[in-house]
């Protein structure tokens, strides 16, 4: 649910990057942080282990600017992808407005992609949310791997109905990073405009 702060005249959206471990969720946020001008972003916070695996979450606040006198703000989060951090993933999903699911193109991670998507659906249910009703897009990351699976194969596994927007990416090179964020933001705006 989007939140509004009447006194500060702000509309706030929470976008969560979800996906299996090592799929590139943190890399997405780091690259966005590098790209966004200094006056439009806050500090990036990472709660990570010593070997730089996400322990709780990464967080990046972004100010989009003002429309109709209201400042629009995004809080971008990643979740820890490793299977045993599910409690943390559930907590981060509280109040989510949109999801970018970051899938891994490696053949060895196809099952992990599917399991992570199923885990996302289950965790959303804890908040009485249905993935079908939440703005969400899928980024297929690491498409530059020599043995990367064809994007079509991953699409067939993750969204066989073809009703979800997909974006191929090499997040490490900032390829395909802004497009899914832009797309999920658009979906969030559309949903708000419909419900307002």
């Amino acid at each position: 649910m989007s939140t509004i702060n009447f006194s500060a005249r702000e509309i706030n959206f929470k976008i969560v990057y979800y996906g299996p471990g090592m799929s590139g969720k943190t890399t997405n946020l780091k690259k966005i942080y590098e790209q966004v001008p200094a006056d439009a972003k806050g500090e990036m916070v990472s709660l990570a282990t010593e070997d730089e695996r996400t322990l709780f979450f990464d967080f990046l606040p972004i100010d989009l600017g003002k429309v109709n006198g209201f400042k629009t703000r995004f809080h971008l989060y990643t979740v820890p992808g490793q299977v045993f951090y599910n409690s943390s993933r559930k907590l981060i999903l509280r109040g989510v407005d949109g999801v970018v699911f970051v899938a891994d193109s490696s053949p060895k991670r196809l099952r992990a992609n599917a399991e992570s998507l199923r885990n996302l659906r289950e965790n959303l249910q804890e908040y009485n949310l249905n993935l079908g009703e939440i703005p969400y897009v899928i980024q297929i990351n690491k498409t530059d791997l020599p043995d990367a699976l064809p994007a079509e194969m991953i699409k067939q596994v993750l969204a066989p109905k073809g009703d979800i927007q997909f974006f191929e990416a090499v997040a490490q090179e900032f390829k395909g990073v802004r497009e899914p964020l832009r797309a999920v933001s658009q979906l969030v705006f559309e949903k708000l405009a419909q419900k307002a």
Partner: protein
Amino acid sequence: MLEPSLELYGETFDKVEVFLDELISSSHARYALIIDLKGFVLAHHRALWAPKPPSLDSMATLIASNYSANMAIAKLFGENGFKEMVQKGDEIGVYAQELGAQALLVTVFDNSAALGRVKLFSKKTVDLINQAIGENTEARPNLDFDDNWQVSSEALLDGLFGTGKQ
């Protein structure tokens, strides 16, 4: 859907600003914030003598997440939750207390303030805020998030990230 985490606007917000100011002066705290459980800052005050605070966004996000984690821990033990949170370092302490179902009152203090005093005045402030919100009869400001708003917002997105077209 667009909902405020707390019904803070108009006269109620003005009253709450006064309450936060009084909390700071009574407890000798550095900062007082109202944050929602999603980690957004709803209101904040700073003592005149206090140094510039760290990033409020980071602070709010970390405290809200910490609160959520503590709630989950409490539930492991069959509790409904912990009603308050205290962290105390060598110099700085943070006290957070539930404010309604979706928000927290956070008081940040240093060694010049006693924890007991911070707790006492924080609880009093929560009561005052709840009372002010309960007595509010003012209608929510009217907002228009129509297609024009959507188009303008998307234009801002393009300005920030580009259109993605090569």
